[in-house]
């Protein structure tokens, strides 16, 4: 996988607050990888990324790719907002908070794919996928394939 420099992350995500604690999260997004900090000492997952582990204060926290499996913890549909390419407020832009399978309470917020707004439910099993927006990859969650 080609390297993406810190400056390129900043240039490609100009509206994000970028720092040394979250740059790997954003670099991961640009590489279609969802990276969540995990403590190498006690195993705790932590989102948003902090420079230490809140449980054991270890400095050895490592951005780690997650399975992409989870459930919808809450959601909303945005009906208005600043114009952005590929975002349709008129028909409603869905935003879901997904509790990741890795650890209770660890959540990521993203949009959806392959699901009607009316079908969104708290507790719905979902899987990570990626959609294109303005030429950049953006994480999205679609309904998990039924077992």
């Amino acid at each position: 996988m080609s390297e993406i420099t810190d400056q390129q992350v900043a240039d490609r995500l100009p509206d994000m607050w970028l720092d040394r604690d979250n740059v790997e999260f954003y670099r991961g997004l640009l590489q279609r990888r969802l990276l969540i900090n995990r403590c190498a000492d006690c195993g705790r997952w932590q989102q948003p990324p902090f420079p230490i582990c809140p449980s054991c204060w270890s400095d050895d926290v490592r951005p780690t790719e997650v399975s992409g499996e989870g459930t919808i913890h809450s959601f909303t549909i945005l009906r208005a907002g600043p114009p952005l390419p590929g975002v349709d407020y008129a028909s409603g832009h869905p935003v879901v908070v997904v509790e990741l399978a890795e650890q209770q309470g660890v959540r990521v917020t993203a949009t959806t794919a392959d699901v009607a707004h009316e079908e969104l439910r708290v507790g719905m099993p979902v899987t990570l996928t990626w959609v294109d927006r303005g030429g950049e990859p953006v994480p999205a969650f679609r309904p998990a394939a039924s077992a």
Partner: protein
Amino acid sequence: MGTMTVRYPVRDQVAIVGVGTTPYSRDSGKSEMGLVVDAARAAIKDAGLTAKDVDGIAGTWVRAELAQAALGIPAVNYYLNTRLPPFSQQVVAGINAVFSGLCDTMLVYHCAYRMGGTSRSAGGDPFRVSRRGMPRPLSPFPDTITGAACYASWANRYIEEYGASREDLGRIAINNRTNAGHNEHAAARKPLTMDEYLGARMVRDPLTVFDMDYTIDGADAFIITTAERARDLPQKPVIVHAAVLGQTDHGVEEDLPDLTDTGLKVAADALWARSELTLDDVDVFMPYDGFSVITLKWFEAIGYCGVGEAPGFVMDNWNEDADRIEIRGRVSVNPHGGSLSEGASQSAGHMREAVNQLRGQASGLQVEGARTALVAPGGFFYNAGAMLFRT
């Protein structure tokens, strides 16, 4: 030599018991948070304490709820989130917070960081540019619930978890609008029916324009002095019986563990632990209502009902004829109309109404003989508080 002519009872009452620092350098190789947690860990250890011993927090630039979360400080009864230096205000506030009993162990921090706007050599560093985003990590816009969208998302969670309905949110909006109709100071006074509420345009599902505060230009101001001096002034004194703040270590919007573990609950618990009065003494209740769902949660957190029971509580205490809430047929809730209808004052209007009610000078519906007012500012995540005023 001092002559001790000014009132200063905190003298000799508070001490600095721990100190920590980081190297001072041109490029630390760390984030602001990285520097803050290094200094904070050093100071806490220097004092012979752990994160669990800290129950108050204040600082600059790095937001208090994020530093608290990063350090794993379980709960604080006092926080200060003044973004801008100078640092002196955080120190003074911390000393007074400890002296007053708001907290026992206060962590106060400051971070200096070279930014692109003030340092030429920092200008080319992507971590030092003048940042346009929010000072916390989040998903790229608009796929985020940071900011206003969080209450829409959590309102959906509330509805799902407790079997609530949009009507339950609507009753909060209707109560406040009914009350505002009696208040000439209020910005939105046109009566609101449930049909109108349910037919309103969605802004962020499940919240409509009626679930969100009514933005205004306006200001409120207060003069605060000692209770002793207040007796010599012309107005009937309004005494601060107890005033607290509350925040959990999950202050990022996505991260609230559930609807029971909120900043509201920390603040409510801290208030009742410091009060001689009880909820039965309260004559008028001013819960925050920047979003309707916050008021529902305040009924639960402050103790009027259990978790998830606010919709039933509101229905049980609804006065059909007056089209508003009257708790036990007596206690008014946001009699001025709150942020939803009087105007979005971020709780300044709630506090003004508390004072006016206790003076018997309410601009709208005066609670007869009101002697105790409860103001509950703030929301779920990082700005909750609770204040009891009495005559």
